[in-house]
């Protein structure tokens, strides 16, 4: 579904080049749940953001269903509809109500009439148990509630793949569960998912494949059982021992 061919990404700060991604190649198949793990600053977010071109890669190719989305000929707005994204900090639109947040894109992109979009918004809200909050503003909601809204806002344009960038990192611990539940549910519908997270148990549970990124390269690419029991790379072993310790 998404083929990533040797992408590189560098930032230039004050004329100095920082290489963040150093040649990443992988293939995300339809229905897969790929979980990305790695130390902070290793380039996980950058990688994820390259997939919908929020960050254009410096070189390399990204093929979405065979179409090179890095080429100028590609209508990136159309492609982005097929790639939902959930941010660490939710990024709900604070000046709009929950309902307006969900309806904005489908109505504006003319995917649905306002009436249809509203019916679907209510439906989606029911699925995550937030139908009572339909007319609230984001700042009247808890972090966990906001993140659940952010997920269904992305789902309202019917994406084919969902990207999650540390969706629970900004949450208080007691709210992590409710967001992960929504993601579990989504996984069970067969959605293709690409998740950056530090929730190891969750990764173990839903992942079909785990990528470990270190200093801008994938150094481990394994199914979860193998990844956690027999990692090959010593950086991975080191990392895992630290996270398991801290999460106990």
């Amino acid at each position, binding site marked *: 579904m998404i083929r990533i061919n040797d992408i590189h990404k560098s930032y230039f700060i004050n004329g100095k080049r920082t290489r963040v991604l150093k040649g990443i190649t992988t293939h995300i198949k339809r229905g897969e749940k790929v979980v990305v793990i790695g130390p902070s600053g290793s380039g996980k977010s950058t990688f994820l953001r390259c997939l*919908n071109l929020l960050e254009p890669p410096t070189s390399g190719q990204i093929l979405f269903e065979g179409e090179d989305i890095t080429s100028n000929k590609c209508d990136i707005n*159309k492609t982005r509809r097929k790639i939902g994204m959930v941010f660490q900090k939710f990024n709900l639109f604070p000046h709009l109500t929950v309902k307006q947040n969900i309806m904005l894109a489908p109505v*504006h992109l003319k995917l649905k009439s306002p009436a249809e979009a509203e019916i679907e918004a209510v439906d989606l809200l029911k699925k995550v148990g937030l139908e009572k909050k339909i007319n609230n503003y984001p700042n009247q909601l808890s972090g966990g509630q906001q993140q659940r809204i952010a997920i269904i806002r992305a789902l309202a344009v019917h994406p084919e793949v969902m990207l999650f960038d540390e969706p629970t990192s900004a949450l208080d611990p007691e709210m992590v569960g409710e967001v992960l539940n929504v993601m579990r549910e989504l996984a069970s519908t067969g959605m293709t998912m690409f998740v950056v997270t530090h929730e190891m148990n969750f990764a173990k549970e839903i992942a079909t494949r785990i990528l470990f990124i270190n200093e801008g390269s994938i150094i481990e690419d394994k199914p979860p059982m193998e990844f956690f029991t027999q990692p090959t790379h010593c950086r991975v072993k080191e990392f895992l021992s630290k996270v398991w310790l801290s999460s106990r």
Partner: protein
Amino acid sequence: MKIFCKTVVTFFAVFTFSVFCTVYTFADAQSSIAKIKSDGFITMSTSAPFEPFEYLENNVLKGVDIDIAQKVADKLSVKLKVNNVSIDSLTFELKNSFCDFVCAGLSETPERAKNLDFSEPYFETSQAIVIAKDSAIKNSKDLEGKVVGVQIGTTADIYCSEDKNILKVVRFDKHVDAVQDLMAGQIDAVIVDDFAADKLVNLNKDKIHKLDEELTSESYSIAVKKGNHELLSIINDVIKEIKENGELDKIISKHYSINHSTSDKFVEYSGYIAEGLKNTLLMSLCAAIIGIILGIIIASIKVFSKGNKKLKIFSFLADTYITIIRGTPALIQLFIMYYGILGSFKVSNIVAAILAFGINSGAYVAEHVRAGIQSVDYGQMEAGRSLGLSQNTTLIKIILPQALKNILPSLAGEAITLLKETSVAGFIGIVDLSRAGDIIKSMSYEALRPLSIVAGIYLILVVGLTSLLKKFEKRLNK
């Protein structure tokens, strides 16, 4: 981004087009009689107040010149339109076909004759010296080493400028201002048309008087654009006719004998204030709308062309615009707009003022909006784009509403600045609130009261506007 560029280009196209639409007639090489007849009106420019030739009564222009001009219009069986402009723009008005003829108590001078053609005189007069009651000045020889006041651009101005014995010539916008300074002891004498001198002395009998000596004898004529012989001969016919049948004498004595009663004055003054308030509000409101739209567009260009090579030129243009507007006085921008850019079209001065103030305000609004856009978390843009919304849509639907809310206080400040800035509109002949105060000042020979009233109205407007915006802000923050 392509759509964005298109929007910008479309905006400028529409903008230019609307400017052209406000132009009701293009400037012609000659204002031929045929053209006037097909238009159905003839335009005369004058400069009031210059009693009894042109003055405002209950906000209507009256006077000898207006009546004569009406005779000319009657002769051609067309309507008369009158432009009231400052005296030093009369030649400009004719040269650029803002009007067909000028009837403003003008006398023929070699300088004026270079650009204009003059009719037969319709009035003979001389320049008189007006001095304070206790002055030692007895005749024109005593003016040596003295400070003399004149109305700018008049024959008196030309006379005094050539007289090397006079120590200093102070040029006033209106001769009444000169008389005010004379009574205040700021200047030693005022040189003014004999006719006006009588009028002025009459109003201030206890303080000033007129010397018997006639300085220069001169005559008033109607002026047309150089070479417009067709119209000139018709005007000459009219003058000859009304001289012969005695109508001219009647007109002159009618206006000379008019004396306003006090109660009339009150009505008249409030008429000026009302007119001024209307124009001030109209200009401020329209300019604010232009300013906001322009400001948002310019700010968006600046924010989104950053780091994009293809849009460098737009960014450069936006920067240039902001630098020029913020680096020059609004009054000069207004002059350039009215006399320069729109000079060759017959655009009404109020339209020119609205455009000038709107464009001026746009530069300031742009800087506020830019700060506002940058104050919105970049995650908002990313969230919008990740949903498949275009950059424009995200900007309009998501970023701008938040940005505008953040900068509402500074926009309110901008609106207040704009409201007060429109006070320079008087310089291109618009009776705005400030000019209304100025006119009343020169008509009533009193400064403090009318100007305090005008200041009070500005204050009420500003305080009202501020509290209105505060309420609006509170509602937004709910």
